[in-house]
């Protein structure tokens, strides 16, 4: 039963991830709330499984010609530095604080998504 839930949550996160909507924002709360994973563990699982999925998704998107590489090198370059900073910062905080911060972040994102959906 638990294994079934693991796979189900994984597929749900993967579909949104492949769409480029952010699979982690679905997968992490599902894992922490329903399976009782520690926040850091579900973040780590999300990161690694995203990497594997992204390789396949990128191949498909490149074939469809949806990837535009113009100018993204600047975003990636600074993103690389600050993602290391962010990951190290997460290491210093206890999982409980991280969990609450992530909850706030999710609420903010969902409000933005609602605004975007209903504006168009």
């Amino acid at each position: 039963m638990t294994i079934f839930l693991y796979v189900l949550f994984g597929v749900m996160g993967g579909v949104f991830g492949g769409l480029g909507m952010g699979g982690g924002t679905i997968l992490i709360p599902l894992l922490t709330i329903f399976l009782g994973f520690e926040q850091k563990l579900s973040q780590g699982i999300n990161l690694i499984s995203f990497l594997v999925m992204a390789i396949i998704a990128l191949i498909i998107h490149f074939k469809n010609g949806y990837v535009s590489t113009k100018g993204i090198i600047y975003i990636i370059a600074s993103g690389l530095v600050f993602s290391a900073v962010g990951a190290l910062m997460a290491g210093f905080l206890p999982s409980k604080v991280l969990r609450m911060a992530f909850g706030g972040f999710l609420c903010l994102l969902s409000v933005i998504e609602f605004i975007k959906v209903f504006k168009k």
Partner: protein
Amino acid sequence: MKTESHVNSTSAVKLSKAILKNDIKIFRAWTSHLGTCYHFVKLKKNKLSGWKGKCTLILSGAVIGLLNGFFGGGGGMVCVPILEKVLSLDQKHSHATAIAVIFPISLISAFIYIFKGYLETFPLCVVGAGVVVGGVIGSFALKFLPPKALRIIFALIMLAGGIKLLL
């Protein structure tokens, strides 16, 4: 003599029609090419050339990287609107490009998470397999764009999860 000229005139008409058709094709290709050139020039002039555009890109990279490293995900959610605004990409392109941006960024933070040992092998393998299967479905589905209903469900799950995690 008379018939010959008649034949000639019809073949001339056919020929000119063919040329016209071909011209229209060439003209269309040419205008679409001009269109992309125009788009390219506009993009280059307004958004990317000069320090202001580059600073915007670098700053947005910093925000995306910090959030993605700290929360281990969700960078894509922030990346899509930034790509739409700053690089003026359409919805499909910004969603696909967001994955290309997040991939190298996640690679770095994944190394740190592995190094610090925030992982367990069994759930990783099972959940990871699910994510890969879902990812393939999602990638093919991008052709049809995420429909409104799906986006509302997505936002609702996020909101519910966010509130639950906060409490």
